[in-house]
């Protein structure tokens, strides 16, 4: 992305000057408060929404062009879904053939793993079963870019567990999976990178390796902590020891602490700003992934 502005009409800009690249081979968590622009960003990447200004490049394609090849390699899973009055097999037969890498075996495997209720017409499914169905379909399409908007909303505890298991086993080589969620705990130990949006701007865009390189996540409050909420703390990783990234704490820290935001702005080059978006656009030229 380079200086991306997007929204719903020129007067309702939601994303303001986003820049940066996300790298293939990762499962990204797309985090942000309501109205921060998560869905807008996903729609822009999916080609559903045109940027007001700026540029988006996904695996060498401009999403807004909606070329068949690009659409075939991208799946966008919306938060709310309605289905046509079709049986599972009919939907698979009709829509699966648009997808060059669709796998019938994987689709059935995912449905069984998610404990999907077969035998009910798709338009009569419950919210949770709709989610399960489309999660299975989306993964079975084997897209290069998979965008999932609140996939765990409506799933019961067992299904969330199954979803985590399935996504963890999904081969991300040469692919990017982006999962937008408010329920960070649902995706613990699953994400390998994170993008945090705040009021239409990208506050953080980094892999967990990069985060663990700069930040240390502790259990108790430390005197030199950048952020502490009484139970957990985040401090500068000065001794070079790696700790597991606590996404939930990091998210809260970013939203609550000006000090954390300032530290991130200074130390993570993948974030948006007037200056580094140019640099990042140059960096991502010629690279595969979402720029």
């Amino acid at each position, binding site marked *: 992305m380079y200086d991306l502005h997007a929204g*719903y009409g020129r007067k309702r800009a939601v994303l303001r000057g986003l820049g940066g690249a996300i790298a293939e081979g990762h499962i990204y968590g797309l985090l942000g408060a309501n109205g921060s622009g998560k869905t807008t960003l996903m729609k822009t990447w999916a080609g559903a929404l045109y940027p007001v200004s700026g540029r988006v490049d996904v695996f060498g394609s401009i999403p807004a062009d909606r070329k068949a090849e690009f659409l075939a390699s991208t*799946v966008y899973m919306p938060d709310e879904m*309605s289905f046509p009055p079709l049986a599972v097999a009919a939907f698979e037969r009709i829509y699966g053939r648009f997808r060059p890498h669709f796998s019938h075996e994987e689709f059935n495997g995912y449905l069984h793993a998610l404990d999907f209720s077969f035998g009910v017409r798709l338009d009569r499914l419950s919210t949770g079963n709709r989610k399960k169905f489309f999660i299975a379909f989306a993964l079975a399409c084997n897209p290069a870019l998979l965008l999932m908007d609140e996939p765990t909303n409506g799933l019961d505890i067992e299904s969330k567990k199954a979803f985590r298991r399935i996504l963890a086993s999904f081969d991300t080589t040469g692919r990017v999976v982006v999962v937008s969620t408010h329920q960070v705990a649902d995706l613990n130990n699953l994400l390998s990178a994170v993008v945090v949006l705040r009021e239409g701007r990208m506050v953080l865009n980094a892999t967990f390796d990069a985060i663990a390189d700069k930040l240390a996540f502790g259990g108790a409050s430390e005197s030199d902590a950048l952020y502490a909420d009484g139970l957990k703390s985040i401090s500068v990783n000065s001794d070079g020891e790696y700790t597991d990234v606590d996404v939930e704490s990091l998210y809260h820290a970013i939203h609550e602490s000006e000090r954390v935001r300032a530290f991130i702005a200074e130390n993570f080059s993948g974030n948006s700003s007037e200056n580094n978006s140019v640099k990042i656009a140059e960096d991502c030229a010629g690279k595969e992934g979402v720029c």
Partner: protein
Amino acid sequence: MLRSIIYLAACHWREHWLREVLCLLAVAAVTALLYAGNLSASGSVSAAFVARQLGNIRYSIVLWWIAVTAAYTLLTAFHGYGDTRRCYATLLLPACSEAKYAWEWLRTMVIFPLAALALIWGVDAVTVRYMAHARPILADVLGDAFSLWDALTATGEPLNYIPYNIYLAVWFNSAAMLVRSGLRPAVAVVTAVAALAVALTFPWSTERTALYPFVWVEMERGYAVTWSMPVSWCSRMAGYAISYVWYAALPVAAYVLSYLKFKEREI
């Protein structure tokens, strides 16, 4: 592209086959009612009157076919293309925009109108056969009546040599495609009204002064009696040619605009 169109057709048929069948049955039913309602009172009048009446009904039925085609396009074109909740929106289906637009055009301007026309034809044939069977005296004159085909392919000023009913069907289809392509509701309503106004203000006439865009034609009893050019440097033939280009350009422009609007449609 052809393969994409076939896939889109399969999607559409599996999802909407019941609606399509009901629409076509409704067309056939209304057509049958139009015949029944207008011919029921003609039992005691002359065969020539019945033939003339049948001709008038057929003309009305062709207008009904145009109205149905336009309404069908207005209600169904690009339906669900911009709905993200529809899993997933047709706009994001892996097929090129040209294929999606071509499929919508084929469906609304070719497949449905032809299917509706075939049913209308069938109802017409059954009606005529029934009438001839019930009143053998009509059998001779029914063949002389203004046929459905005549009503469909009738030509006249200003679109001389071009069937104006078919032209109207194309014009309304193009306008309805534009209305449904993703215009804002207010703009869409204005466009629909403007399309109707344009059709109504076309100088369709065999009895009054008719106007090509670039040639004035004075009509008298269905015949053009005088021609005059609004500009002296343009020959009459050139005026005709420009006029035909103008009339062709109207629906073509509407189609082009609707395609461009469809391409930039957002969800």
